């Protein structure tokens, strides 16, 4: 048998999750019980499964899977025309096979697929160099994160709790820090503006409709439809390690201004997935988002910079920083790349794999997801 790259087959899943567990999770070769089910659910049986854009495995001459790249298909519209975007992620390669360029050949095979646009938003520096070497580009703006702090002392402890060296200290000081933040908020009210808008739950259908119509200058946008949007939000909500998924529509006098989606951990730093609004309403929608997160107890919010958010974020005491994730794109049609690089695309964390929790979730019970 020769070395080969081929579409993921249901029979490969056991080997793939074993490899994934070893490389991206615990280091063991024995994955938890429901990780395989989740891979099947996500990569073989999503509602919009497209056999032309499959996940791929790299198989060595003995038939052993030594590499995997996951594929999620996103229907999109470019200048009103339906196109397909492939989100690739969960790239793992057997450590012994890394000197056989397994990762580069997997990326190459995925990039030459039938999709019009390829996206990955959690790439390492090594993958960025490979990707660019194979003709892809880095979406520089999407590599920048933003941060809005609401409760400074709690934020410090929430930030440090994820740093191994400081975790114990952070947990110890949090009960002291939180009341101090409360006192500061009473002395200095108004650090989070009171919104002039109303917020309420938004259905997948309403969200899909809003994304399809918002933004006068948007040339590239998701075109999900109700069923796929509902499925996608269910998958996002299932990643409980990141917190509760909050999705809200923002209205004023009954008229829809926009929407937002973010993860709110039980305590800590919320992670914004998406903000959708017409350019003139972005500020109002951000004010509503910040107030909602602050009101629910978040110490801060983090997100990814997108062109239409940059100025309104800057006006609202947000700081910008290198996010640590590289957002990479590839398309044969230079107009699609130009739309993204010039800020005329609505691409958010929902149009990537950042939110996926394969490396985070415990997957310990069959109905974990």
């Amino acid at each position: 048998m020769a070395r080969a790259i081929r579409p993921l087959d249901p029979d490969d899943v056991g080997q793939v999750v074993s490899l994934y567990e070893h490389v991206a999770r615990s280091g063991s070769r024995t994955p938890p019980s429901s990780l395989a089910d989740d891979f099947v659910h996500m990569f073989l049986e999503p509602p919009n499964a497209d056999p032309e854009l499959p996940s791929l495995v790299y198989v060595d001459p003995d038939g052993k899977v030594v590499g995997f790249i996951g594929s999620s298909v996103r229907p999109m519209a470019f200048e009103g025309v339906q196109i397909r975007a492939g989100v690739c992620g969960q790239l793992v390669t057997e450590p012994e096979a890394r000197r056989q360029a397994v990762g580069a050949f997997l990326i190459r095979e995925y990039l030459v697929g039938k999709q019009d646009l390829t996206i990955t938003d959690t790439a390492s520096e090594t993958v960025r160099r490979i990707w660019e070497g194979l003709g892809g580009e880095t979406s520089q703006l999407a590599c920048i994160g933003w941060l809005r702090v609401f409760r400074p002392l709690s934020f410090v402890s929430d930030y440090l709790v994820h740093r191994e060296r400081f975790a114990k200290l952070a947990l110890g000081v949090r009960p002291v820090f939180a009341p101090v933040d409360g006192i500061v908020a009473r002395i200095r009210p108004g650090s989070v503006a009171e919104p002039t808008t109303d917020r309420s739950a938004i259905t997948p259908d309403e969200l899909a409709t809003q994304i399809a119509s918002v933004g006068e200058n948007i040339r590239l946008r998701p075109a999900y439809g109700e069923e796929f949007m509902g499925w996608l939000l269910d998958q996002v909500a299932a990643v409980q390690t990141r917190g509760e998924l909050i999705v809200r529509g923002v209205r004023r006098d009954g008229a829809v201004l926009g929407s937002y989606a973010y993860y709110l951990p039980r305590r800590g730093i919320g992670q914004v997935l998406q903000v959708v609004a017409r350019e003139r309403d972005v500020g109002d929608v951000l004010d509503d988002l910040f107030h909602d997160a602050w009101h629910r107890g978040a110490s801060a919010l983090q997100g990814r910079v997108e062109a239409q958010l940059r100025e309104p974020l800057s006006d609202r005491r947000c700081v910008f920083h290198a996010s640590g994730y590289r957002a990479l794109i590839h398309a044969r049609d230079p107009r699609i790349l130009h739309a993204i690089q010039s800020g005329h695309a609505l691409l958010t964390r929902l149009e990537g794999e950042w939110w996926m929790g394969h490396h985070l979730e415990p997957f310990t019970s069959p109905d974990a997801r």
Partner: protein
Amino acid sequence: MATSPTSERVQHLFVEALNKEAPAVETDLIEGGLLDSLALVELIFAIEREFGVTIPLEELEIDSFRSVASIADFVAGTAERAS
């Protein structure tokens, strides 16, 4: 197998661009673990520069990069098609 001028130039790229010892013409680079992903990409850059060719992503197959000899054949074929 006798070395050709093209395969000699490819061998030279291993030294020059990758800082590696030049492999024998028929050495299996993949099975021998001589090319990791970054080295492959750097080699592609170096080949494009050295030979003045553009390697289309669609033609970048594992077997084309299996040995110095197969790379030399691949480069010659790519140059021929381009002309």
